[in-house]
């Protein structure tokens, strides 16, 4: 019972994150949506870890948090770079290359 609620929460969070990723034009908001997805994963991991009484899940979640931080850092740097060059962070405008 308990588990299902966590999993549901995680799934909803995941979907919200996906929605944000797909719908927001602003690069920074997309990065924040990514955080939502990763946190959905973390909820899953911790919930499963708790279910099986295994620390592996928590450890995994810690790794995820750390890596996510690094990733978002890189992401912000790239968005900043784009802002410098284009004076805009609207993702839908970035389509120099296609086909």
């Amino acid at each position: 019972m308990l588990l299902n609620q966590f999993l549901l929460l995680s799934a909803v969070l995941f979907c919200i994150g996906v929605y944000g990723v797909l719908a927001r034009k602003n690069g920074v908001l997309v990065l924040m949506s990514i955080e939502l997805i990763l946190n959905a994963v973390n909820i899953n991991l911790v919930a499963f870890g708790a279910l099986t009484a295994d620390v592996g899940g928590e450890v995994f979640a810690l790794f995820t948090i750390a890596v996510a931080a690094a990733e978002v850092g890189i992401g912000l740097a790239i968005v900043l770079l784009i802002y410098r060059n284009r004076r805009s962070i609207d993702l839908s405008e970035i389509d120099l290359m296609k086909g």
Partner: protein
Amino acid sequence: MLAGIAPMFGAAEFVRPAIDWHAAAPELTLLGFGALITMIDIGWLERARRIAAPLASLALLATLVPIITLALAGDDRSMFNGGFVVDDYSLIMKATFVLAGYVVVLMSTDYIAEGDYWENEYYGLLLSSILGMILMASARDLISIFVALELLSIPAYMLVTWRKRDLKSNEAGLKYYLMGVFASAVMLYGMSLLYGASGSTLLVDVNDAVSEPASPSAVVVLGIIFVVVGFAFKVSAFPFHTWAPDTYEGSPTPVTAFISVASKAAGFVALMNLLFVGFLGRDDVFEPLMWALAAASMTAGNLMALRQTNIVRLLAYSGVAQAGYMLAPLAVAGTVPPDKALTASVTYLVIYAAMNLGAFAVVIAVARKTRSAEISDYRGLFHYAPGLTVAMTIFLFSLAGIPPLGGWLAKFRVMEALIEADTASGLVLGIFVAVNSVIALYYYARIGFGMWAEDAPDGDLTPVNVPMSLGVALTLTAVITVAMGVIPGDVVGRFTEVSLLAGG
């Protein structure tokens, strides 16, 4: 081998895991050199520029030493409850990564030095990405796979964006980064489900759990699919390839070569680790999945490549198709003896690395003169750069799988595995491979035709200046490509012994 290892949580006393330093030596060597380069950069700044590339080369060659000694020692090693494994397969892949990295360094030397780019960081990041890759070759645990993946990906995001003031490079980086992160998010979600189903992050345990008839089917299936999707992105399988052409086009060409070869190979390594160690019991799930991915990738990749006018984009799409060929044996991985499918894919990967790197080396060399990667600028190449033309011909037709160039052996092994499966699906996929090699030949041969048989644009016949390091890269890859086709003998012979140590 699991014996004597205590449960890692609860009341039990902590036991320090035994560390086999020899087994970890390649990673440690590379880590050391990477740190060294970073330190030198911080300390010496501009003065470090000249030695960065040689140092990176040295780092990679030095890393090769423990790999060779491990290979000579010959025994399989395992650490951390089987989370880190050194076996023939991982050694071959490590050697491939390191050599590919070395070739990339050779290709980068003049490219990076001549552009107005930071050099020291470039090599430092390159080395850390390679570190992620060789780690991946040994990873047999969901966490270490994840960490290795990120370790190889994050530096790559930065390398792709290396030409900071170039809009295309920015865009390439953004796309690569965003898609990479999405994919790893999906993959992570899948991993979390698998972890939930098995209660362990060790692949061996995952396999035990997913193979259980009692295991929650939906969770396992979803987990497998999400994980595979995550790596399908990495290997740029259709329809998760979308980033590849844009990223390839926008990044600095040596980096393109790096991600199209090393990074793709790392994706495959991860995929194979997962499939052969983690999911082998659920071949009913992953076989159709791989089948669909393989068939779609090779067909769509080739068809899209037909219409390309930029050689880098063309190579990107051809890379999609090549990924399809490499995925094909995995579609019968549960039917044929696992070794068979594994060795087929590994052989393909190694040969693909040589020929694709070589092709990019030629692209770099030609761009030194034409400043362009348009296919039309390759016309008449034969008239002013016969050596490059012959090399490019070798690489392209090797990619097409024409004997006696290495690519034929790669395709041969793939088909061999497919036919050995002796199933209708295997046969059909084999026919897919056969038909697709014909489609692919069309665009490879078209470039070949342009290079050999057409006149140079504007009649400009000034020769191409090929710097020495690039020349070495070209020679190395060309020799390997040809040798793999003509006298693969012992080299491929080693691959027969490739088998995944199931982690124990």
